[in-house]
């Protein structure tokens, strides 16, 4: 059933050819900007232990990851709360959460497969970026999937706060802000000061972006991949429980208000 959902979202996306083209141009610009910034920083000469290829690989893979993370779940939840649709979701046989997760995954996979992979392939050829061994790629994919789950749970759980905050745009801004700061999606955590880096290690966000990408790049972190996967699994579990608790809380509050 979820597979059908993924396929439907996939097909829907084909309809918007122009949008796709514009988006692709925009994504290229994003990567180009990043590369210019890295180039300028390396030209200044204060960074010695990281080379240009690593930074470019990082940015390209990070762009793919963030393509997979796009989510409207906060706004959709807000809509459902406003219109009262949420009352129906309480009694539906299909879980709202998984409905969103697979729907969004289908849409995002479409983008990443059709434009992301193309962008990635071209950049890997232009800048002759190294590609890791198949085993590493496999671990990367597993870790990436766990990361996606973590991020989705975070988006969904914070999205549920709309019940108290009333406006979905802002619940999403909070998630996006925290993610940008602590995940390393924009700037690799190598550039962070030590105290901030330890903070990032405690929070779940770096397990969505920085850690999986480090596995891909074969950086130091990659040697402890078993540990990374284990921590990711625990985060999935913790967030799952947190989401259940909040959901229960909302369900009972709604009943008090009489829907």
């Amino acid at each position, binding site marked *: 059933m979820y597979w059908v959902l993924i396929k439907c979202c996939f097909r829907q996306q084909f309809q918007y050819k122009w949008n796709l083209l514009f988006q692709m141009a925009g994504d290229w610009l*994003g990567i180009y900007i990043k590369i210019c910034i890295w180039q*300028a*920083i390396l030209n200044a000469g204060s*960074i010695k232990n990281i080379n240009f290829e690593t930074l470019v690989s990082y940015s390209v893979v990070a762009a793919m990851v963030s393509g997979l993370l796009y989510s409207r779940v906060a706004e959709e939840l807000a809509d459902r709360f406003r219109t009262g649709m949420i009352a129906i979701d309480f009694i539906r046989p299909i879980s709202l959460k998984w409905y969103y997760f697979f729907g969004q995954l289908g849409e995002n996979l479409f983008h990443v497969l059709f434009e992301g992979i193309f962008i990635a392939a071209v950049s890997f050829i232009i800048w002759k970026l190294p590609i890791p061994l198949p085993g590493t790629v496999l671990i990367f994919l597993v870790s990436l999937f766990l990361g996606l789950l973590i991020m989705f749970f975070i988006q969904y759980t914070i999205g549920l706060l709309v019940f108290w905050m009333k406006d979905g745009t802002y619940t999403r801004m909070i998630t996006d*802000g925290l993610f*940008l*700061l602590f995940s390393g999606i924009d700037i690799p955590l190598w550039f962070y000061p030590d105290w901030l880096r330890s903070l990032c290690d405690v929070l779940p966000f770096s397990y969505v972006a920085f850690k999986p990408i480090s596995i891909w790049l074969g950086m130091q972190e990659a040697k402890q991949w078993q540990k990374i996967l284990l921590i990711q699994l625990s985060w999935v579990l913790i967030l799952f429980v947190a989401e259940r608790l909040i959901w229960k809380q909302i369900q009972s509050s709604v009943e008090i208000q009489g829907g």
Partner: protein
Amino acid sequence: MFGLYGAFAKVAFLTQLEYRGQYFMRMIAKLLGWSSGFILLVILLNKVGPVAGWGLYEILLLYAFDVLSYSIAGTFFMGGFGKLPRLIRSGELDGILTKPVNPLIYLICTKISAGYTSNYVIAGAMIGISLHKLGISLSLYQMIWMILDIAGASLIQAAGFMITTVPAFWFLKSDGLYRLFYKNLTSFLQYPLTIYHGGIRFLLTFLLPYGFINFYPVQLFINRQEGVPSPIFLFLTPFVGASVFFIAYRFWEKGLNAYQSTGS
């Protein structure tokens, strides 16, 4: 007449302040959302030192100009133009056209946004801190010039919103255009344009004059003249702002004339 528009704007503004708790949460969300950009910049530049010869506070000044002008433009134009495609599709625009007032001013005043006040604070503070750290004290003449620059930059940003969303009159959808020609292209502005290829600088100077939002005007205050075809470019922002806004306004009128209600 102005009293009427003022009343519209006041009502729109105050309704957003009505729910204190909600407004407060919004402020936190926005504060977090917008300051994260500044924080990342500080983190990176603290580690790597100057980029293309520009120090941390010079780049922060660039970024603050961008955020401040974006927020001023956003306060007045984001509400109306961000929703323009939806207003057209839902037929709400018809309602606006039947009112005996200028549709643009009506749209601006009734959709004015109270959500950007936190940005004024962040960006204003950043400008103050940067100038202080750079040891620059502005003369009265420079201060007036900075205000004119911010006004001009805001008009450029507003023109960017308008020109990329007005095509919704013809196509009913315009978010792709908006994203590419406004959102993506203005993301060049976070760093000095000298780090990009000359073609990009040309594009952002002569074709889509986003460079005048921060790159050219800021150099006046920090005594630089980089990537500038002529020193006069440092003074052009208010004029560029006024002219592109005029073009955007004409484009809006053209769109309005071509407008056919969707009938919904």
